[in-house]
């Protein structure tokens, strides 16, 4: 059952719509607006990244999609179901893994899968089969009977994913699933995510790792409850970066960065950011073409050798920070 790809109808919602729909979705807690008129669709089989700083409204959005809390306004549909009125039937088709990996440490890996399978109402017979599929999918062979407490981070994480999908959900919500997991395990985990997506499962994932966000097919940036940008990672780099990034190589990066920060503080050069990257310096300027010359000139006027200065593609993290931070915080970012 798990290994059979979903048909187009199964991937989509009841009426062939997108499996996840939010329209002007809003959540107020008293005076505080945690989620503010957020609209997005996730397409069948898509891996969608939902990104934002802490407290931006990411988890609140997921909880509304899961039917755990009631929206204050707006519309939500998950697989065509209304999470508010059709919670139970919807939850039978939806998987959820939180950053806390709610596993029972005193059960073995296999027992955890069994437990979650029974919670989701799988028959013992169906579960016997499904259990083995999950163990294989999560690469837990040889560890099935290890106490969960004794599994390392990467194993636990894959087990938690296995438990979250034991009922073959068509939509999966992953809330910071890779927090605290090492680079190699993260790669394996993303391999699993795409294996599921390739079979038609729709996936929403939140993460603090911007290099992981680059792996999503589409991402939405949420800040202070509002959706501030949405698109493929490449699109956002083209359209949402305020300014352009220059990378400077010099034998004296520490002295050079002091000089550039001075220029920024005095306003003689309009830097959005000046930051040390190891032996290099990154500055964000309104236009690379226009400011490449003046930056080089400033450094050379103080006898600082510029071995190389080039316009580089921003990372998704550059774009994210440029999109979400407000001007008042800018002084903080530069440490002035």
């Amino acid at each position, binding site marked *: 059952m798990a290994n059979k790809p979903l048909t187009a109808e199964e991937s989509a919602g009841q009426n062939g719509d997108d499996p996840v729909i939010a329209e002007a979705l809003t959540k107020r807690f008293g005076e505080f607006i945690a989620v503010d008129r957020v609209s997005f669709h996730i397409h069948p089989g898509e*891996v969608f990244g939902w990104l*934002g*700083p*802490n*407290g931006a409204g990411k988890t609140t959005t997921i909880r509304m999609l899961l039917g755990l809390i009631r929206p204050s306004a707006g519309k939500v549909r998950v697989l065509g179901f209304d999470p508010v009125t059709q919670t139970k039937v919807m939850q039978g088709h939806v998987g959820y893994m939180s950053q806390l990996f709610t596993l029972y440490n005193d059960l073995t890996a296999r027992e955890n899968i069994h437990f979650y399978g029974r919670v989701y109402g799988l028959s013992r017979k169906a579960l016997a089969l499904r259990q083995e599929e999950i163990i294989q999918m999560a690469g837990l062979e040889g560890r099935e009977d290890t106490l969960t407490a004794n599994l*390392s*981070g990467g194993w636990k994480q894959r087990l938690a994913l296995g438990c979250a999908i034991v009922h073959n959900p068509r939509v999966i919500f992953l809330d910071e699933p890779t*927090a*605290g*997991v*090492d*680079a*190699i*395990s993260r*790669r394996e985990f*993303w*391999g699993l*995510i*795409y*294996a599921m*997506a*390739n079979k038609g499962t729709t996936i929403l994932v939140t993460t*603090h*790792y*911007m*290099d992981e966000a680059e*792996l999503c*097919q589409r991402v939405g940036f949420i800040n202070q409850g509002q959706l501030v940008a949405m698109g493929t990672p490449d699109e956002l780099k083209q359209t949402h970066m305020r300014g352009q990034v220059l990378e400077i190589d010099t034998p004296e*990066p*520490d*002295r050079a*960065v*002091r000089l550039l*920060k001075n220029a920024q503080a005095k306003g003689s050069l309009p830097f959005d*950011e000046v*930051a*040390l*990257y*190891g*032996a290099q310096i990154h500055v964000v300027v309104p236009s690379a073409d226009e400011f490449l010359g003046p930056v080089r000139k400033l450094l050379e006027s103080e006898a600082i050798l510029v071995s190389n200065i080039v316009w580089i593609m921003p*990372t998704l*993290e550059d774009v*994210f*920070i440029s999109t*979400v*931070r407000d001007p008042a*915080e800018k*002084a*903080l*970012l*530069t*440490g002035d």
Partner: protein
Amino acid sequence: MSVEVAISTQGLVKRFKGHRSTVTAVDSVSLEVKRGETFGLIGPDGAGKSTTTRVILGLLRRDAGTSTVLGYDSMRDVYEIRERTGYIAQQFTLPADMTVLENMRFFADLHGIPRKLQKSSIAELLKFAGLTEFTSRPAGRLSGGMKKKLALACSLIHKPQVVLLDEPTLGVDPVSRREFWNLLGNLRADQGLTIFVCTPYMDEAERCNKVGLIYKGRLIAQDTPAAIKKMVPGHLIEFKPTKFEPARQLMTGLPGILEVQTYGAMLHLFVDEIENRQKLIESVLQGQGIAWSGMRVIEPRMEEAFISLVKRQEAADHGQ
């Protein structure tokens, strides 16, 4: 011992004895951090980062080798080291019911700084960390990013020459993480502070002058980020096949393909030479009716380099 060296270890070993077996948490680690350098000790959970840090600081006894800070021996000269170093332990938490200012005073008192001198240095550090407006807020009510900045400010109260930070950005969002690293950049550029950072985040390596990659207790590489990225074999080609698993299997073992890594829906192939190998890859995919998109040559990042180095290490271990 040259004064230019801030931290040095030679053949450092730390073992932990269990009931049944002994675990070698730090296995012959030799590293050197020069004054004014930002050194990143980078590796997965359980690789030995925290243990190495604690042995360097004299908080744990070493079993073999040497370790020094500013020329002082980690085991013999504990007090000399403590006076000259700042340390943020992993998941360190500040007293939550004490305000920002009370926390700063508490750390100043611990270091025996006279109250008279405290006022100006605390004000300076609060300004540096962007916490001046939050002086009377309880530490427990600060955001995650601000807590980390306060911890950093507290670790600097006695004007150390070296700070050791154990996963200081764990669980912090990208905006706060960038702010924190910009603060470290200022400390390096303005004060010449030596900074030793443990982190599992590969992208943070880019913000260090020098990086040590640690895996299963062993230092598998130690160099500048640029030099480490050059340690990957050959060139890197990226593309997204329509049929992932069949494509991955096809690529493994093709002539000139040195290594295959997966990256989400994409494959990363390390090749010995670009032009002919790209043609070969395309013709093999075509022959099997597999389409692809976005084939391009990319620069390997620290993460690709790390994975490649770990794989080689494991292959060498298995070969023994």
